């Protein structure tokens, strides 16, 4: 534990140094994938005060006078990754019960819970994610509950959750169906079946509808000048669900099997909430249905099928099938199911399965940002957006490519050339001083 503290202290000092230099950042000569536009073979990226101010071809973009220009020739720049489904900082490293705050397994309906009250900003998992090129994450409670709680949309910077949270971003609402919430059944509690999962969700959302009606009535009465109008009592469970009903808070719904996905859509139809299908292992089986209804789908790409029945029909070609059907696709880690360092690798496996490279890159960045309502500030390299980007040593989907640096709002939060950062890229962060000098293979 003391060791961890020291590592954090060192990183804070370095962040401080980087901050002083972050006002103006110019990278020149890299192949740039803006994602929002065509690839620039030899590009320039200019960052001022944490925002992208210009991106274009070398020679076509004026470089501000006095700027220190970093030569990025031979390198590749992509937008920093956005992970729509992560448990870093809440599902801990190391994975011991003392630090595990992922599933409040004491009741299946937990909309009042906030992930932000449990996220540990010093957890090594956050630094692993930075080493993997992740800048933005939706950190969620687990899938053990039908309604798991409020998720946190964060940038992976800062030493408190307040610094990590994205200003103005409400976060999502975690829901789950299928196998996991049925865990209550083994304890003789509901839900023991998929039927009860849906019923519990519906009962709760109907309560939220009623609460919303009372609040709306009060708002109208107040607006009409009725002095005796009384607001309904505050209800911590129902308040965030009203935000769901109002479309301000997207339901991030864990669901695997095709019929479970259809159950989610049935609920969304009934309660008119906005939803992102999370995992969607069998989404490929109903790709046309999802496309027709414009339901976005954030998938996980794993090394093999199985491990649970609802993951049996995992299909490495699933993301490609969804892409071809016209579904908006993102790719996520569900860290620690997939370690955040391997998020780019997931997309590479999707390419192996037939996804286009452009589509796979978009799935890691802009599509993912849009699924968190963050598409206007991150996920692509455009003037005015947050300067969240990754410098790669080569093509994004090659096994030989390394993340050289991750920038969040113009600040370098991961730098492979720093030995203490490298340990997070290779592994072995907890043995830092004893890690063999041989590290950092090209």
């Amino acid at each position, binding site marked *: 534990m003391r060791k961890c503290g020291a590592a954090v202290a060192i990183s804070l000092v370095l962040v401080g140094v980087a901050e002083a230099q972050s006002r103006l950042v110019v990278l020149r000569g890299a192949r740039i994938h803006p994602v929002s536009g065509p690839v620039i073979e030899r590009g320039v990226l200019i960052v001022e005060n944490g925002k992208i101010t210009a991106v274009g071809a070398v020679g076509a973009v004026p470089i501000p006078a006095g700027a220190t220009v970093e030569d990025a020739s031979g390198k590749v720049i992509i937008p920093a990754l956005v992970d729509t489904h992560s448990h870093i900082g809440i599902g801990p*490293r*190391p*994975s*011991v019960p003392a630090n595990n705050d992922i599933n409040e397994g004491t009741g299946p309906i937990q909309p009042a819970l906030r992930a932000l009250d449990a996220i540990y900003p010093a957890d090594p998992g956050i630094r692993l994610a930075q080493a993997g090129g992740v800048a933005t994450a939706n950190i969620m409670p687990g899938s053990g509950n039908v309604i798991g709680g409020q998720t946190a949309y964060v940038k992976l910077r800062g030493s408190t959750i307040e610094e990590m949270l994205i200003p103005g971003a409400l976060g999502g609402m975690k829901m789950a169906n299928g196998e996991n919430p049925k865990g209550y059944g083994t304890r003789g509690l509901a839900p023991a079946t998929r039927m009860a999962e849906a019923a519990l969700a519906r009962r709760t959302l109907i309560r939220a509808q009623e609460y919303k009606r009372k609040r709306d009535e009060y708002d109208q009465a107040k607006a009409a000048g009725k002095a005796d109008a009384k607001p309904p009592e505050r209800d911590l469970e129902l308040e965030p669900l009203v935000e769901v009903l109002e479309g301000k808070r997207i339901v991030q719904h864990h669901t695997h099997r095709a019929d479970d996905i259809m159950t989610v859509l049935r609920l969304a139809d009934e309660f008119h909430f906005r939803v992102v299908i999370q995992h969607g292992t069998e989404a490929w089986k109903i790709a046309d249905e999802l496309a027709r209804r414009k339901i976005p789908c954030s998938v996980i790409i*794993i*090394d*093999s*099928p*199985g*491990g*649970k*029945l609802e*993951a*049996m029909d*995992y299909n490495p070609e699933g993301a490609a099938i969804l892409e071809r059907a016209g579904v908006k696709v993102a790719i996520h880690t569900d860290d*620690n*199911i997939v*370690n955040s360092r*391997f998020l780019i*690798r997931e997309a*590479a*496996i999707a*390419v*192996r399965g037939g996804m286009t490279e452009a589509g796979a890159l978009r799935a890691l960045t802009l599509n993912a940002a849009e699924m968190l309502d963050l598409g206007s500030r991150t996920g692509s390299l455009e003037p005015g957006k947050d300067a969240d980007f990754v410098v790669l040593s080569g093509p994004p*989907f*090659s*096994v*030989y490519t390394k993340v050289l640096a991750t920038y969040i709002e113009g600040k370098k939060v991961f730098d492979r050339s720093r030995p203490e950062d490298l340990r997070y*890229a*290779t*592994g*072995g*962060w*907890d*043995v830092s001083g*004893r*890690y*063999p000098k*041989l*590290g950092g*293979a090209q």
Partner: protein
Amino acid sequence: MRIVACLFLAGGAWAQQIAIEADTLYTQGPAGTIRNGVVLIDNGKVVAAGAATQMQIPNGYQHLRAKVATPGFIDTKTSVGLSGIHNVAADQDQDEATDPNTADVRALDSFNPREPLLDYVRSFGVTTVQSGPGPINPIAGQAGIFKTAGSHGAASADQMAIRAYSAMLFNLGEQPKQAYGPKNKAPATRMATAELIRKALLDAQVYRHKWQEWETSEKKDASKQPARDLKLEALARVTQGEVPAIFTAHREDDIATAIRIAQEFQLKAMLSQATEGYLARDLIRKSGMTVLVGPAMQRLEGLQTENASLENAALLADAGVPIAFTSGFEGYVPKNRVILFEAAVAAANGLGAERTMRALTIDAAKILGIADRVGSLEVGKDADVVLFDGDPFEYTSHVEAVLVNGELSYQRKH
């Protein structure tokens, strides 16, 4: 640029004569890597392998073309076939967690030839696996070596086995004590795990001695014949050095414990997983032990895998430790690791393509003692071949076809 031709199998699906033409042929034998190479297969065996310019493909051979061809890959330790894809009690036959010493259980008796994960790993080039009991018991039982496909249209564990009892598996570290401690049963600590193993090995030595005494006695008096004990019988083959002991250990000190026990009983021993092997590499090299390198992409659970490094394989190999790859064990999603993926990460993190390909093929075969059958494309060996449309280690390359015993057992759909 895909140049794998469709293969139309005429007549029986086996006993084919097949010619594989590859832009790059990794024979992994003395012929090395050949540009424009050809492998001829007849009746399940390699009958010729060499440069296209120096070979004539006889009439009647089916042709398969690929950019790259390699020998089938060898997963040196897994529970695939025992631990099923569904992960329900019905298909989990890897951990007999009712007794910490199950030296008498045999992979052969759990191995399900129809396990879908066998098909899955085969589709990534794995043609041979050493499969055995899982991570729970300190003395977990007998591993076997199996092909990942049957031949001649049949598939039984006995037919797929290259060796029924290839190694005795031991587990150190977190898992044994976590399984038994909460049941108020030993081992609840690492100390007890080590003690339990030592005591059993000692008992096996005594058992062997009793049998030797009886066998060398003049009269061989039937009434004095020692009773057979299946556990001690199996362990005695380990203490005699006939069968290797494989110790799964993650943490540096667990690796040291494995070496300590192996040296005390003069076992022919190997380490499996060795997550912190790179920290203990000098100790391992001095011990002369081989490391079956565990998946660097394994899910980091508990404390013992916390220091997993993508450079483990490279650092061990650089230190002079012989290595091969194991997919280890996964208890949840994903149910299995794929050694091709793990090898690719090792290749890209210091091990390099050549050493990685060796560790996947011929080195693994030699380590398991089956190099007379598999591991390279040499005359007389089993025709286990993997065909790729590009760099085998690139994420975006595809396995186009896999042959096991000369039979086309996987072909990519286009």
